[in-house]
């Protein structure tokens, strides 16, 4: 297999005195979609925040494209092609849709290329074009999720971390979002997907990790995990 794009080696992290991650090791290879599933509070979002440098690594190391990114400030990562669609979307509520998109490309300087990418995003999500002068906070949940994805794509990421893209959305829209995710992946972006909706996530992903109270409890091909009776019982409600 090719060299891993992202590799976590025994990563520990904590919020204040609460230990959130107790030795996470995972690998993401170029071109794949990796799903990370687990219950509420298992440490999924913390893992992503730790990769992005928001939460400090206490022990262990994180490698991106072979070099350690432990301790680098979060704002230096998007230029390297590592980008996140965070939990709860975190649209800038009082910035317009267009401004939100422009911010996605904040580190890039070439005006024409950015304008072209924005047009591309609009063609990808026509609804955003309609709403381009509205404030981000006035969009509906689904529209915000699309905006969040489009914003992340503006930085032309190689690896996209997605946190709960289905959270709080109507089932119909969830399906649409996952179609989009698959399409983004098809165009060459590697995706690490964190989801509570294990069924959908594992159907979309190639491989999967199961997280339990801050540690990886299982790791396998997505299809295998989907067939695992324990998983079905614990996360798929059967």
């Amino acid at each position, binding site marked *: 297999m090719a060299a891993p794009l992202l590799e976590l080696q025994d990563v520990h992290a904590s919020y204040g005195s609460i230990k959130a991650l107790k030795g996470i090791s995972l690998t993401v290879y170029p071109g794949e979609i990796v799903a990370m599933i687990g219950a509420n509070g298992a440490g999924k979002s913390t893992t992503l925040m730790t990769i*992005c440098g*928001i939460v400090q690594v206490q022990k262990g190391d994180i490698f991106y494209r072979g070099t350690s990114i432990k301790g680098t*400030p*979060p*704002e*230096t*990562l*998007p*230029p390297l092609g590592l*980008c*996140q669609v*965070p939990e709860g979307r*975190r649209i*800038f*509520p*009082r*910035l317009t849709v267009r*401004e939100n998109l*422009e*911010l*996605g490309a*904040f*580190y890039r300087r070439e005006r024409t290329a950015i304008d072209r990418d924005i047009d591309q995003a609009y063609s990808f999500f026509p609804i955003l074009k309609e709403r381009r002068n509205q404030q981000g906070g006035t969009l509906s949940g689904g529209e915000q999720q699309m905006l969040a994805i489009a*914003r992340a794509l503006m*930085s032309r990421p190689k690896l996209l971390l997605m946190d709960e893209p289905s959270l709080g959305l109507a089932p119909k829209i969830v399906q649409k979002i996952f179609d989009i995710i698959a399409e983004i992946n098809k165009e060459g972006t590697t995706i690490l997907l964190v989801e509570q909706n294990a069924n959908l996530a594992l159907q979309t992903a190639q491989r999967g990790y199961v997280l339990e109270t801050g540690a990886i409890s299982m790791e396998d091909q997505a299809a295998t995990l989907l067939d695992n009776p324990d998983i079905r019982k614990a996360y798929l409600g059967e």
Partner: protein
Amino acid sequence: MEYFIQQFINGITLGGVYALIALGYTMVYGVIQLINFAHGEFFAAGGYMGVILLAYMTGAGYLETHPFLCIAGAGVLTMAYTAFLAMGVERMAYKPLRYASRLSLLVSALGMSIFLSNGLMLTQGVFDKPYPSELTHGGFEIGPISVGYLQVIIVGMTAVLLVGLNILVFKTRIGMAMRATAQDKIMSSLVSISSNRIIALTFAIGAGLAACAGMMTGFYYGSVRYDMGFVPGIKAFAAAVLGGIGNITGAMLGGVIIGMVEVFGAAYISGQYKDVFAFIIMIAVLYFKPTGIMGENVDDTRV
């Protein structure tokens, strides 16, 4: 009627001074939600740096030969100095507290305010320092009403800065980054905005504005004093909140309203209660519109 117009001119000038300080106040607040009590001290430091440079230029004889070049030069250096000071204060006293309780930050700011004003006193002495104001003290008369050039300059400057700042914040890349940082620091760092740099920059701009105001008031009133920052600092804070804190146009409006209320209160009712009127108007406005005149209805958890 002449009396009214004259007082109106007085009010708008005073309002301009408050607005100039409030602009910086509100910018800093907008980005990190900090009531920067040290802002008044930046104002004083600006006033002092101006007087130091101008006195030096007078002593060295430059001011006589190239008056306007000197004033412009002193202005630029003063703003740079104060911006530098503010960035240092931010780095030392506020940055370590970025994720601490806002009250801790407030106390740290109070400490800085006391520290800076006493530092000014120790290095520059307790006496007020005169500005070389002969250059700028002219004026003209329209009928019985006299208007000073400086009054025009202060009001004009405030208007220009208002427009300039609005352009900066709403039309430029940096401004967009500032607004993003103000709304969500984590998310803005995820889109590769260095919030530390943006905050430092905001402090620099805010302090530069305060320094500009400090020099203007130095020229206008004729002298500076080490404790000159305290009262205008509070008034500017009131002005910024009255206009809707974080809102640039609001700060300007708030400053003018406070200035007007003070002047007309003093002119028609009583000089001793003018601050009372200013605060009562502020409280009344906030009572009916708790987010200030131009304030947006931001969601509860963030206020």
